[in-house]
């Protein structure tokens, strides 16, 4: 009998079921694709890190500029160390400023013991290729680097070193390094000499003797390292990348799951309508002896089948989409966390969990309907007076209010593992409150409809005010997707305006100069800086130097920005407190909001920073905004940096032009002043700001796509509900035709119903979205990325969103009702129609 009942359901409802399965599938596919792309990227990073680490157990890392190479001897001599490999790791810019490539300088004879893949062929270790690896001016490329740079054996690789260029000859390609991304290997001495790292190392890979306790060894080795140099487990790049990108990935996953939830509302609507239309049949089953539990099981099974079909289809679709996207555009979904190509490597457990969520949501929808039907009066159901589900006995308004109030304590929760779970909880509670409030709000907002004169409007508003349960579920889908879109639109707009304002303050010079288009191999010496500053075309320069400070216990190092600091410069960073500190013997620094949150530092506090291998006590003068990084950053006055480190180099120059001088003239003058500098890159501040905003817009492209999908699913849901409702109202339309309404009057009435429904859903959604946007900006964003943003309201965009939803609902209602209205009035009112 179960099979017969289920088969009946499937046969009677094919189109609508197909649409529901499609929407569930789309939601599952989106969530699955986003997660698969990220898991593939992380797997690739981890694989590359392990490949590069080879058989190493530990790795020792220091600041970006390197640490004293004497550390290597101290580590290598320790009794617990079996082998140690010194490495210089430089992100070098190509001479044509088009890109950069990671260059590893290694000692090949040591490296072969830890990273055999670094040598072309183990069988030829003692042969000519290993010798060529030790040749100065020779470089070995990974397969990915060779492909991207279009180089093969004998080709020339030109890299920026300072303001000069170093030319290397490609000795060959290392086939076993096919999973490490873009990589170039040279002799360590060559790397040190070429990139100004004489006496410095970036990393030491260590293999311990068999039987040595790795944790104990790490602790012992760490105790002899200079400040700012840390020992960690090998291949720590993977966990670091995972930690840095976690907030971004979780936020994107949450967005995709909201799209899935919107599809679940469609499933609820379909199941609810179907149950409503089968009230008499289900009442008969109850009269014949089916228990409440049996009825609930039947409906739950229907829901689970729907969810399973959608989830299976969605998983397949998501896998296909992820594979295709990885091949076509790579793993970077816009935020710039993952740049290297990655083979498809989904997390099957996560995909199964997403599919289970899809099934679970449908089963939950079915359970909710079953609860309503369990309250059905059997006698009433047999008479089949109503075409809707029994109303819930629980009062909607108090529940909605309770959920709304529940959101506030959730907002006060601190982050858990740097994830704003309390913020997500508040968003979920407020969304649920908005959904539950749809029915009561429909009645309250449309109560004025009783005073409407137009009969069509009166009928339309009366229908929507009563809002059948299944239509309410579809409107709830509109509410959720509209709220999501509105919240993201407000948040992104607030972010963009805040970013624009910040860029205007931070990128305040006229022209920016750097050696090399990216990476860290380019720099300008003090002499070069002075020559530029002395030019008549130049009013002033601000040298900028970047460094990384590794702090124990932190997944990501702090960024150190050494630069001139003044009240004018600081203003652009929105410091708190805003005033410059009084003159004192202290070294003052300004920390970013991320550093404040991650390190727990406060303005006025004295903290210790590992600079140039020493512990340096500094005073935190203030907290600044830094939208360029989600990890911590510290601004240190350039004079103090140079005094502490003796390093007078600069990565960038921020140039203020003399009055009446344009950027082109300044650029020409600088090039003349630095004739040996090949690879200088000039960028006007306007172009730099524009490019930054472009990157910002691109990073949200995936977000916009997910929002569009959620809206499409929501609209598909409401259109589908309209179609089903219109079809079930054929008799009513026939009666209205009997009473003298024309076909086009009926269609106009449907348009008004669609517009009223769309307006209802969009208005509730916009209000909910506005509240959620405040949570996103003030809680989620702050706890995830540690950024303070001002609220800005994109009134035009929100109005356009409202208008679009209303128009699409009106159009959808008309289109979906056209078939029902087309039926002849006579046949429509027949008892057996």
């Amino acid at each position, binding site marked *: 009998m179960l099979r017969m009942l289920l088969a009946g359901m499937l046969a009677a409802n094919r189109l609508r079921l197909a649409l529901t399965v499609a929407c569930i599938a789309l939601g599952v596919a989106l969530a699955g694709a986003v997660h698969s792309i990220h898991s593939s990227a992380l797997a690739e990073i981890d694989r590359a890190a392990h490949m590069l680490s080879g058989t190493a157990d530990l790795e020792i890392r220091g600041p970006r500029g390197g640490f004293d190479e004497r550390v290597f001897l101290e580590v290598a001599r320790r009794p617990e160390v079996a082998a140690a490999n010194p490495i210089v790791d430089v992100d070098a810019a190509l001479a044509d400023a088009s890109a950069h490539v990671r260059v590893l300088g290694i000692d090949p004879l040591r490296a072969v013991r830890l990273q055999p893949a670094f040598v072309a062929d183990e069988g030829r270790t003692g042969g000519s290729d290993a010798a060529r690896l030790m040749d100065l001016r020779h470089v070995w490329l990974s397969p990915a680097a060779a492909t991207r740079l279009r180089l093969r054996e004998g080709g020339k690789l030109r890299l920026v070193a300072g303001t000069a260029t170093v030319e290397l000859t490609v000795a060959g390609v290392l086939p076993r390094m096919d999973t490490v991304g873009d990589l170039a290997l040279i002799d360590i001495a060559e790397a040190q000499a070429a990139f100004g790292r004489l006496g410095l190392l970036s990393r030491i890979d260590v293999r311990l003797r068999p039987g040595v306790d790795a944790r104990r060894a790490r602790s012992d080795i760490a105790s002899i390292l200079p400040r700012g140099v840390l020992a960690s487990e090998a291949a720590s790049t993977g966990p670091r990348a995972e930690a840095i990108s976690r907030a971004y990935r979780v936020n994107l996953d949450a967005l995709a799951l909201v799209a899935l939830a919107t599809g679940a509302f469609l499933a609820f609507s379909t199941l609810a309508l179907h149950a409503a239309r089968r009230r008499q049949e289900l009442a008969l089953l109850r009269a014949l002896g089916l228990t409440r539990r049996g009825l609930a099981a039947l409906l739950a099974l229907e829901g689970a089948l729907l969810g399973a079909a959608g989830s299976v289809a969605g998983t397949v679709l998501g896998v296909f989409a992820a594979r295709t996207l990885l091949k076509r555009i790579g793993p970077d979904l816009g935020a710039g966390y993952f740049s290297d190509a990655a083979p498809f490597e989904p997390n099957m457990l996560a995909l199964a969990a997403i599919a289970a969520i899809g099934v679970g949501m449908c089963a939950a929808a079915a359970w909710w309907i079953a609860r309503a039907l369990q309250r059905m009066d059997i006698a009433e159901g047999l008479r089949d*007076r109503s075409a809707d589900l029994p109303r819930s006995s629980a009062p909607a308004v108090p529940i909605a209010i309770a959920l709304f109030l529940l959101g506030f304590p959730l907002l006060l929760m601190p982050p858990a593992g740097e994830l704003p779970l309390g913020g997500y909880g508040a968003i979920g509670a407020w969304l649920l409150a908005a959904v539950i409030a749809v029915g009561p709000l429909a009645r309250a907002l449309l109560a004025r409809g009783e005073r409407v004169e137009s009969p069509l409007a009166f009928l339309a508003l009366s229908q929507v005010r009563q809002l059948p349960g299944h239509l309410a579920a579809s409107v709830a889908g509109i509410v959720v997707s509209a709220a999501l879109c509105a919240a993201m639109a407000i948040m992104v707009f607030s972010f963009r305006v805040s970013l624009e304002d910040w860029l205007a303050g931070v990128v305040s010079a006229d022209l920016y100069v750097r050696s090399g288009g990216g990476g860290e191999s380019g720099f300008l010496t003090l002499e070069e800086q002075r020559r530029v500053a002395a030019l008549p075309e130049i009013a002033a320069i601000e040298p900028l130097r970047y460094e990384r400070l590794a702090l124990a216990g932190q997944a990501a190092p702090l960024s150190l920005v050494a630069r001139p600091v003044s009240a004018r410069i600081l203003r652009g960073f929105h410091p708190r407190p805003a005033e410059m500190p009084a003159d004192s013997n202290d070294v003052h620094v300004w920390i970013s909001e991320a550093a404040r949150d991650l390190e727990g530092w406060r303005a006025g506090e004295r903290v210790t920073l590992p600079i140039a291998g020493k512990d340096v006590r500094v005073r935190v003068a203030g907290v600044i905004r830094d939208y360029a990084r989600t990890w911590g950053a510290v601004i240190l006055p350039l004079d103090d940096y140079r005094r502490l480190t003796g390093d007078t180099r600069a990565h960038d120059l921020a140039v203020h032009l003399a009055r009446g001088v344009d950027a082109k003239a300044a650029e020409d003058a600088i090039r003349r002043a630095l004739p040996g500098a090949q690879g200088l890159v000039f960028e006007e501040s306007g172009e730099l700001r524009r490019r930054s905003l472009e990157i910002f817009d691109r990073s949200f492209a995936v977000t916009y796509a997910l929002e569009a999908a959620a809206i499409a699913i929501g609209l598909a849901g409401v259109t589908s509900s309209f179609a089903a409702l219109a079809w079930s109202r054929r008799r009513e339309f026939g009666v209205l035709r009997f009473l003298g309404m024309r076909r086009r009057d009926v269609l106009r009435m449907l348009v008004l119903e669609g517009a009223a429904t769309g307006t209802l859903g969009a208005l509730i959604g916009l209000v909910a979205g506005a509240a959620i946007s405040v949570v996103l900006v003030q809680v989620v964003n702050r706890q995830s990325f540690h950024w303070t943003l001002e609220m800005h309201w994109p009134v035009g965009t929100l109005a356009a969103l409202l208008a679009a939803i209303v128009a699409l609902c009106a159009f959808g209602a008309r289109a979906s009702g056209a078939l029902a209205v087309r039926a002849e009035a006579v046949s429509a*009112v027949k008892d057996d129609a």
Partner: protein
Amino acid sequence: MLQVRGLAKRFEPATPLLESVDLDVAAGEWVAVVGESGSGKSTLLHLVAGLDRPDRGEVRLDGRALDFRDDDALALWRRSHVGFVFQAFHLLPYLSVADNVALPLALLGASRADRARRAAAALEAVGLALAAPRLPGSLSGGEMQRAAIARALVHAPRLVLADEPTGNLDAGNAATVLECLRDAVKRAGAAAVMVTHSPFAAARADRVLRLSAGMLQAA
């Protein structure tokens, strides 16, 4: 008031349903049409109402012929001149009883006050004044049919058409409804045609005609 001449309709080529039906109904006269199931009673009603197009023939109300080619014109004509009572009542479930009754007036553009006043009067006439604010789902079958009768007559139509108005009612309710319908029709002075297969219902009419072999004859 109502004149039908030579009305013919067939749905299948070999089987004509109505051959050549003639019918005259005076103002305030209540005519019952009886016949076997499938004899074409409802079809006759639908043709008279302009809801279907005859193969041949003419329908006139107050001397004016219906133009079966113009669907919109027929709808507007029905709106002003015709009241319907259905077997299955067909009250809109999301409107109150009063709003259901007032629906024809709303379609005619009557003001809200006028609609309320006349709907109240119509409900009073059928004994449902207290049911005005309730939803149809809370009424019994007999009550719903009386509300449908009120809706059919609220706008003072010239023609009332009832299709098996007691088909879904028990004997007691049927009698009440028929009494109600008769009073309303007489009060309104409308021409009324009722199709039924119930001899009990037919006996209440002023005149009974039998539809057989596509032709109307006195019963």
